[in-house]
């Protein structure tokens, strides 16, 4: 009787040790994985949205499940940061080579007043044929920007352009399962770095 009890206790202890190690190794693995990303970790479910793409169709974020999504909020009257970022995203796509078909770049305008479907049709594919521009009603844009904590506001400074926009300028990376995983601020725009992260999450 005593032997059996000792045996059971031993087995239980061994199991606990095994589980303990499993947890430790898992944590180490997770921490190591996080530290290996170029972008800033940013984990939460990617909020769903329904907007109009540059060909006039209504699209949802869910339409891109199974692909990694690179999301950027900008506007076409932006002469500096937006073209630079779109150019970078094109470089990322080229760097990915074969994997580029598993990635979708989405440009969401935060200036729906001026950036209608026609404007985006001329602007977005110019950077890369596969990129999709999204617009919508001011309410729809307001909602998606709010959901993504993407700040934007009109700036009237007496410029001949009419008005300019201050806007969140980071690129968001959503994984194929629809989870927001990484964020790239303007000082983390190395195409190789971003492509490396994408390969890891695909």
């Amino acid at each position, binding site marked *: 009787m005593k032997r059996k009890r000792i045996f059971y206790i031993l087995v239980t202890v061994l199991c606990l040790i095994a589980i303990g190690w499993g947890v430790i190794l898992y944590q180490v693995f997770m921490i190591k994985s996080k530290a290996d990303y170029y972008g800033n970790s940013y984990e939460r479910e990617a909020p769903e949205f329904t907007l109009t793409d540059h060909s006039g169709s209504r699209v949802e974020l869910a339409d891109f499940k199974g692909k990694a999504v690179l999301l950027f909020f900008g506007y076409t009257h932006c002469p500096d*940061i937006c073209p630079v970022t779109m150019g970078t995203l094109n470089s990322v796509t080229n760097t990915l080579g074969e994997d580029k078909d598993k990635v979708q770049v989405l440009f969401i305008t935060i200036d729906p007043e001026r950036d209608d479907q026609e404007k985006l049709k001329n602007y*977005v594919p110019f950077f890369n044929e596969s990129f999709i521009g999204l617009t919508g009603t001011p309410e729809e844009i307001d909602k998606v920007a709010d959901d993504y904590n993407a700040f934007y506001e009109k*700036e009237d*400074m007496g410029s*001949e352009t009419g008005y300019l926009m201050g806007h969140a300028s980071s690129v968001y990376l959503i994984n194929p399962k629809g989870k927001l995983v990484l964020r790239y601020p303007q000082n983390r725009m190395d195409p190789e770095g971003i492509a490396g992260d994408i390969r890891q999450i695909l």
Partner: protein
Amino acid sequence: MSYAQGGIEIRDAWVRETPPGTSITALYMTITNNGDEDDTLTAVSADVSKSAEIHVTSVNSEGVAKMEMVKSVDAPAGKSVVLEPGGMHIMLIGLAGQPKSGDVVEVELEFEKAGKIKSLAKVQGIKDNTQEHQH
């Protein structure tokens, strides 16, 4: 390409190519004041645009990008001022056509002391890898 007058030298002026339907773009360059008197850039014009304004891009700690319009740019004696992506640039507004990679744009810069200096700016394509490495 560099253009000099009255101590002011304009180097590596370039304009970003525009997607179709776009009416604004950015002009960048390096302004060097080789003289011993401070000078100031007060106006810019380009043959391809109705007007030109000087803007400074900034991105705050929360990642929000904004532009601030400034009336002039100081060109201190003996120093260089670089207008580059993500920083200061000259916004060309009301483009007459779409500048394409390989085109050349004629710009005129007006300095308080050095006067009007003409310069030629090359148009760089978005997909040119060289444009972000200009100094």
